[in-house]
């Protein structure tokens, strides 16, 4: 029976991830006074896209075709090391947070390469922006995880979150609060959410992520959309495990609470998108540097404690 | 109620804002200065004669060793010495001011270079701030608590800023802003130093009262005390005009009215010096004499060097005097750092420098009034235009550069002797070299200004020199000259007591 639990956790993450963009859209619609798409819209989209035949440009090579698959595979693998509701994942080993970071990097690399492979200046521009912001976002995320590793004295993600208890919040509240803020900003930036990017826009001057995937169609686009949903889930799960370290004792109870927290993060993202305007492109690095500063501060606090 | 010395200028200052008649206000200024000086003299007398020596004096102004009640203001020899300088200078400045303000009133405000016309600040504000400035300086000399000393020094900055901005034009405003900001930030560092000082005494229980700190000095935490000294030194050193924190000083001194420059240079810098002396005394008692001495000698010598560098090629005679002040502050720090007789010499130097520099600034005001320019290159043959001013100008030059006999010479000589006696030959040689540079630099300016070829200027009449604007300077110069010939026994004992022996 015990062997089933990590497996079902993993399956739940894979299945529930596409729900998050739907929730965000509903929240935005609520704030905008509209009814909005159904929460399950992304499932419908994925189903539709998988049945289509992809169209490839004559100039595109295998790199272009490999991009989406590599991306989604990297993220599916990344989810393997992600703990669920403070319970260890399948694949927990020492230093796996670095593994996670590299998988995220690999996904980004594949997307960027695919975008460049189209040979379109437009997509090249998007790739350039994506990498430019990643330069700021990755150190922030990495330092944040390092600080978290110091808090629990563990170097595996499962260990870190298992060591996190309400007691930790009482002792190291400043560190955890800073980390939560930093991770939230990184979440917004990495998932092309509003202050950094606008997922709805198709205006060439402002797009970052959307512009890179314009040429993908059919199942390829489905992979990309699904990968994006997984990535959102990944960050939301990290934040949720951090702000809600409470244990009820039962696996089901913990899981339910955790899922609620993840949905809460999605709602928070929706609220942020509704009340904030998108930042000017040149200001986005400032936002990410702020996240970096938060993470760095948290690390300094934790090291000197 | 027991501190008329403090309350008198304070009350007079507030009164000056209200009084409407110019004449009455000037009288108020002069008479406040006179009474203040009288009270100061009484206090000094009662200090010298011991308790009960002078009737009522103890009641008027309490002296330092007092019963253990919480006393904020009282005098010891050091404070009294600086109070004496301040009060004497203010006496001269107030008399000068009476004529100066009258002259300014009748004169349209024209820029010294004739470029633009400006207004003066309201005389009431000027006089009021002047009197409050005196009150703040009295508070500096009489406070016996480091925190209070800090507050009083900061108050002097704030109250003297409006004085610098008396002539309302761009340059004086620039000088005022620099003065306000640099000194306030510098003083903020001194506040940090006070905190370190308090922390150093947490275990020994010294508090921030001088007497208590001196008594508890050996038990103070040494590293914290060092930090405290450095912060206080940088803080008060900024106010004192030690290089490299001196940048505000030439600007403020050159743009302020002559009598304000005199007070800034002669009285205010001393107040900051007093702050340095106070913390230095505590550090020396705690056995840190080598450390503080090293810092003081280093920055002292650096100030002398800086002054010498900027003296050469100086184009503005008031700025030149300002750099001379930096030089003398450097010498004071040097003497204090050497300790022993050096400290005595530094105190004597403080007195001589204050009187001489104040006299020179008064005279520079006359030169400015006669020639309407602050540029050295445009003042030539002063003795033909204003002979009595020229005599004072040249006399002041001889005194300030330390030609014997003068108090300045005596103090420089004693410091040099102390340096040689201590085996610091290189220090002595360097000191002497830069003094020579300063002398030549200043001689070039003063001699050219006094005797240079004036050329023919059509219809020029000799400038009518008001005696009231010459007398204070003449009096001060005479005193300094006298000091060089003879230091009275009472002053000698006061100086030694102030030097802590």
């Amino acid at each position, binding site marked *: 029976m015990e062997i089933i639990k990590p497996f079902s956790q993993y399956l739940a993450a894979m299945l529930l991830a596409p729900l998050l963009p739907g929730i965000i859209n509903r929240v935005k619609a609520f704030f905008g006074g509209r009814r909005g798409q159904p929460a399950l819209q992304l499932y419908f989209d994925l189903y539709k896209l998988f049945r289509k035949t992809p169209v490839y440009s004559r100039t595109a090579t295998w790199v272009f075709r490999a991009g989406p698959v590599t991306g989604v595979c990297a993220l599916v693998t990344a989810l393997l090391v992600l703990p669920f509701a403070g319970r260890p994942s399948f694949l927990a080993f020492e230093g796996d947070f670095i593994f996670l970071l590299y998988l995220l990097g690999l996904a980004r690399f594949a997307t960027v390469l695919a975008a460049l492979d189209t040979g379109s200046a437009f997509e090249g521009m998007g790739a350039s922006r994506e990498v430019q912001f990643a330069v700021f976002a990755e150190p922030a995320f990495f330092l944040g995880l390092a600080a978290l590793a110091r808090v629990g004295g563990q170097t595996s993600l499962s260990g870190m979150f298992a060591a996190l208890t309400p007691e930790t919040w009482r002792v190291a509240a400043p560190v955890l609060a800073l980390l939560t803020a930093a991770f939230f900003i990184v979440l917004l930036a990495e998932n092309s959410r509003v202050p950094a990017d606008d997922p709805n826009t198709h205006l060439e001057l402002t797009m970052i992520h959307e512009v890179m995937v314009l040429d993908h169609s059919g199942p390829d686009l489905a992979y990309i959309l699904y990968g994006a949903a997984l990535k959102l889930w990944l960050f939301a799960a990290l934040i949720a495990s951090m702000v809600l370290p409470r244990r009820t004792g039962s696996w089901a109870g913990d899981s339910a609470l955790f899922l609620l927290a993840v949905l809460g993060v999605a709602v928070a993202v929706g609220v942020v998108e509704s009340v904030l305007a998108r930042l000017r492109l040149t200001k986005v690095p400032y936002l990410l540097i702020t996240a970096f500063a938060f993470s760095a501060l948290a690390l*300094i606090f934790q090291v000197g404690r | 109620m027991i501190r008329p010395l403090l309350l008198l200028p304070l009350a007079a200052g507030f009164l000056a804002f209200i009084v409407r008649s110019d004449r009455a206000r000037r009288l108020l200024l002069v008479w406040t200065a006179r009474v203040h000086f009288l009270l100061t003299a009484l206090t000094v007398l009662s200090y010298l004669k011991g308790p009960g020596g002078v009737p009522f004096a103890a009641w008027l102004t309490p002296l330092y060793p007092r019963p253990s009640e919480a006393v904020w203001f009282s005098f010891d020899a050091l404070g009294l010495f600086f109070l004496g300088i301040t009060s004497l200078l203010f006496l001269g400045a107030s008399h000068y001011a009476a004529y100066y303000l009258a002259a300014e009133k009748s004169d349209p405000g024209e820029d010294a270079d004739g470029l633009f016309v400006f207004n003066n600040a309201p005389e009431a504000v000027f006089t009021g701030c002047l009197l409050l400035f005196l009150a703040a300086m009295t508070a500096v000399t009489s406070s016996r608590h480091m925190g209070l000393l800090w507050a009083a020094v900061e108050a002097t900055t704030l109250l003297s800023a409006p004085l610098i901005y008396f002539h309302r034009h761009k340059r004086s405003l620039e000088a005022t802003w620099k003065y306000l900001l640099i000194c306030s930030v510098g003083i903020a560092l001194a506040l940090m130093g006070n905190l370190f000082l308090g922390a150093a005494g947490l275990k020994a229980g010294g508090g921030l009262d001088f007497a208590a700190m001196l008594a508890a000095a050996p038990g103070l935490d040494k590293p914290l005390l060092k930090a405290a000294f450095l912060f206080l030194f940088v803080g008060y050193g900024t106010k004192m005009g030690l290089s490299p924190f001196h940048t505000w000083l030439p600007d403020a001194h050159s743009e302020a009215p002559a009598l304000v420059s005199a007070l800034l240079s002669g009285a205010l810098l001393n107040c900051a010096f007093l702050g340095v002396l106070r913390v230095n005394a505590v550090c020396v008692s705690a056995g840190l004499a080598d450390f503080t001495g090293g810092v003081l000698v280093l920055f002292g010598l650096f100030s002398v060097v800086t002054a010498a560098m900027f003296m050469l090629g100086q184009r503005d005679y008031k700025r030149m005097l300002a750099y001379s002040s930096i030089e003398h502050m450097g010498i004071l720090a040097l003497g204090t750092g050497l300790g022993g007789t050096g400290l005595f010499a530094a105190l004597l130097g403080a007195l001589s420098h204050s009187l001489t520099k104040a006299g020179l600034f008064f005279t520079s005001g006359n030169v400015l009034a006669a020639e309407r320019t602050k540029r050295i290159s445009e003042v030539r043959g002063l003795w033909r235009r204003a002979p009595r001013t020229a005599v004072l100008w040249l006399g002041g030059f001889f005194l300030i550069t330390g030609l014997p006999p003068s108090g300045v010479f005596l103090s420089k000589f004693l410091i040099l002797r102390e340096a040689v006696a201590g085996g610091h030959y290189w220090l002595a040689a360097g000191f002497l070299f830069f003094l020579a540079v300063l002398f030549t630099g200043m001689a070039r300016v003063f001699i050219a200004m006094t005797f240079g070829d004036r050329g023919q200027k059509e219809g020029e009449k000799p400038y009518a020199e008001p005696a009231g604007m010459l007398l204070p300077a003449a009096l001060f110069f005479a005193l300094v000259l006298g000091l060089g010939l003879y230091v009275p026994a009472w002053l000698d004992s006061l100086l030694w007591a102030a030097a802590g022996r």
Partner: protein
Amino acid sequence: MNTFAELIIVVVILLDMALAVTGSLSGCIRLVAVQGVVAGLLPLLAGGGAAHGVRALIFPVAIVTLKGVVFPWLLLRARDRSGARKDVEPLISYPASILLCLGAFIASSWLGSRLPLPETNVAWIVPASLATIFTGFLLITTRTKAITQVLGYLVIENGIYIFGLALFVEQPMLVELAILLDVFVAVFVMGIAIFHISREFDHIDTAELSELSDWRSGEYGK
């Protein structure tokens, strides 16, 4: 309880960083005010509710009124009257500012651990105060406006105040009040000076206040 005080300290540091990146002048004025209020409340909140008589109450109230209400009012008025541009016009970029700030905090942590200071029961209070003082200097040196220099002075003052809390140096009430009065008069006088500068020069850019100098070859005015 100390966790709460630590959170406040974190807020103070975050306010430093916010000051380093805030471009709007009025935003900076408000941030400095908030920092002053937070610092003023620190002894009340960190003390665990144990009141030390009237002194413990009067003083924070005075600080909060002064730093939270009077100073922002004075400075905002000075800003409006001077007709200055609305941004702080930094000499270095905002990312550079925040990195400097962060570097200062790291350096202060190192320094704080090296200084032989008495043990404090609130973690990070010494580095936070030192970093705050540094931020004040940053504002003074890398922002051109006269108002931001006053703000820098106030931030330094906040930092020193927090430092004093960290060291447990209890100055007598009279001295504390005298210091507060000085700071008030300083801001007041600087406010007046800013008004005069804006009237005389048509701007409050201190980089342009450079007529008096011994380094320039030209004679002034010509």
